[in-house]
């Protein structure tokens, strides 16, 4: 057995050894889980700039902890359900290490004011950035998806992840003081008094509903497969014709093993037809630049055991990976487009 009290020197050694690695762990966990969106030094990107002094002065550890745990359903920020509590704490410690600000602690006292009056104030002063019903700004926040003069995408105040993380007192503080280095102004700029601020908090709080963890998963197959009554080459031509008919530009068609084997050895029974609508692509990238990993649009035609099939990914199923409500619409549209092309080509 190992008895720490009998071997204080060894126990001390173990303890001291663990200290630097816990600090490193926070940085490593941040790099692995957060830096992609928030930047290595919290300068922001898809996610808000966590390194802003004004943010760190207003975000309590509890707010950060809950945010990491529940995410922002439908607004990119995922739930980090795989992280243990001590790992989340290590990440928070790392974020705090950037700036020496006082760590705020907000009590959970609810503000019971007039939400209906708050609504009027919200529509007058807040809706231009935070959107109707607090739905937030559009785009992911990446440079591809927002005007470059905006440092951040205005957050969705009606997001259940946000409402489950932010206390009324924290909301009140943000509205009162604004957030320096972001477009969020202080209430004094609109001559709002404390009663007005309380009414605004109550209106924002009225968006809160019972939070359902995660987004409902659709029972969609991973691929769309259509059997073609036509020959292999006829089906390829049909796909091309149907794609052009749907305002797509043909990019190329090539063997599935193109680039893997010499041209003369390429498969004659597996052909990928690539096509693109650049306007749609541009819009999709503006909604979420990560969607490029399913680009370009492609339908593959195969001939196997005397049967010809045309198949594609199912964008509806894949949209679930992104936690982005805006992208769901684009993926639904793409699903319908693929269906139409596949149906037309194999009718």
């Amino acid at each position: 057995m190992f008895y720490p009290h009998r071997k204080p020197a060894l126990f001390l050694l173990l303890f001291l050894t663990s200290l630097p690695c816990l600090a490193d762990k926070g940085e490593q966990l941040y790099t692995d889980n957060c830096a992609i969106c928030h930047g290595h030094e919290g300068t922001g990107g898809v996610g808000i700039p966590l390194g802003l002094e004004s943010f760190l002065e207003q975000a309590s550890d509890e707010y950060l902890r809950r945010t990491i745990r529940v995410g922002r359903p439908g607004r990119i920020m995922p739930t980090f359900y795989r992280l243990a509590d001590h790992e989340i704490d290590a990440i928070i410690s790392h974020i705090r290490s950037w700036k020496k600000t006082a760590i705020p602690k907000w009590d959970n006292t609810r503000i019971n004011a007039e939400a209906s009056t708050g609504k009027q104030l919200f529509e007058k002063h807040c809706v231009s950035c935070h959107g109707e019903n607090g739905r937030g700004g559009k785009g992911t926040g990446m440079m591809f998806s927002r005007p470059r003069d905006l440092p951040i995408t205005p957050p969705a105040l009606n997001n259940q992840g946000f409402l489950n993380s932010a206390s009324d007192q924290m909301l009140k503080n943000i509205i009162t003081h604004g957030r320096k280095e972001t477009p969020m102004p202080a209430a004094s700029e609109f001559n709002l008094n404390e009663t007005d601020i309380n009414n605004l908090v109550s209106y924002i709080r009225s968006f809160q509903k019972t939070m359902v963890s995660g987004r409902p998963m659709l029972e969609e197959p991973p691929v769309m497969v259509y059997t073609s009554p036509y020959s292999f080459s006829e089906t390829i031509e049909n796909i091309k014709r149907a794609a052009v008919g749907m305002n797509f530009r043909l990019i190329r068609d090539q063997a599935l093993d193109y680039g893997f084997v010499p041209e003369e050895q390429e498969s004659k029974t597996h052909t990928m037809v690539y096509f693109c609508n650049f306007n749609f692509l541009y819009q999709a990238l503006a909604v979420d630049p990560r969607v490029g990993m399913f680009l370009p649009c492609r339908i593959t035609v195969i001939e196997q055991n005397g049967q010809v099939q045309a198949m594609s990914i199912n964008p509806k199923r894949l949209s679930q990976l992104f936690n982005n409500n805006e992208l769901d619409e684009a993926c639904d549209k793409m699903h319908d487009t693929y269906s139409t092309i596949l149906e037309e080509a194999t009718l």
Partner: protein
Amino acid sequence: MMMRRQTGLLALLLLVCWLPAQAIITGELIMVRSDKTFPEAMLILQDAIKTQGYTLSRVQRVDIGLTMSGYPTDKYRIVFFGKTEQIHELTKKHPELIPYLPLKIAIFAEADETLLVTSDPAIFMDLYPDPRLHEVFHQWHEDIVNIMKKVQIPD
């Protein structure tokens, strides 16, 4: 005997401290941010793919197509890769996987930094319940994590 156990515990603790440094984001998407510029990150990515034992089959220049069509945008490429024998074998036995082959990683510029993103092959385990495929998906996951890690923190 006691000394050996204590040494073992110490070694275990050190190992626990080291392990997270080798980890990378896992989930439905694998994403990394590299502080390298786009051209540098692209070179590291291509080299990492080859080092991991894969063949780079093609690079789709999305930004070029967009710009030529009147939609100027920052650098955005898709890198396709795979293992020749594996692709032939899988497409023969599991044609339902074809739309997801070859594997690919999207790489794009964000100011002076570069972002890389791909779907975590582990998600295929839910999409394709055939247990014979799971070993392949697991290997892809491991390989892609290694590739992305090399771009995130080059040697």
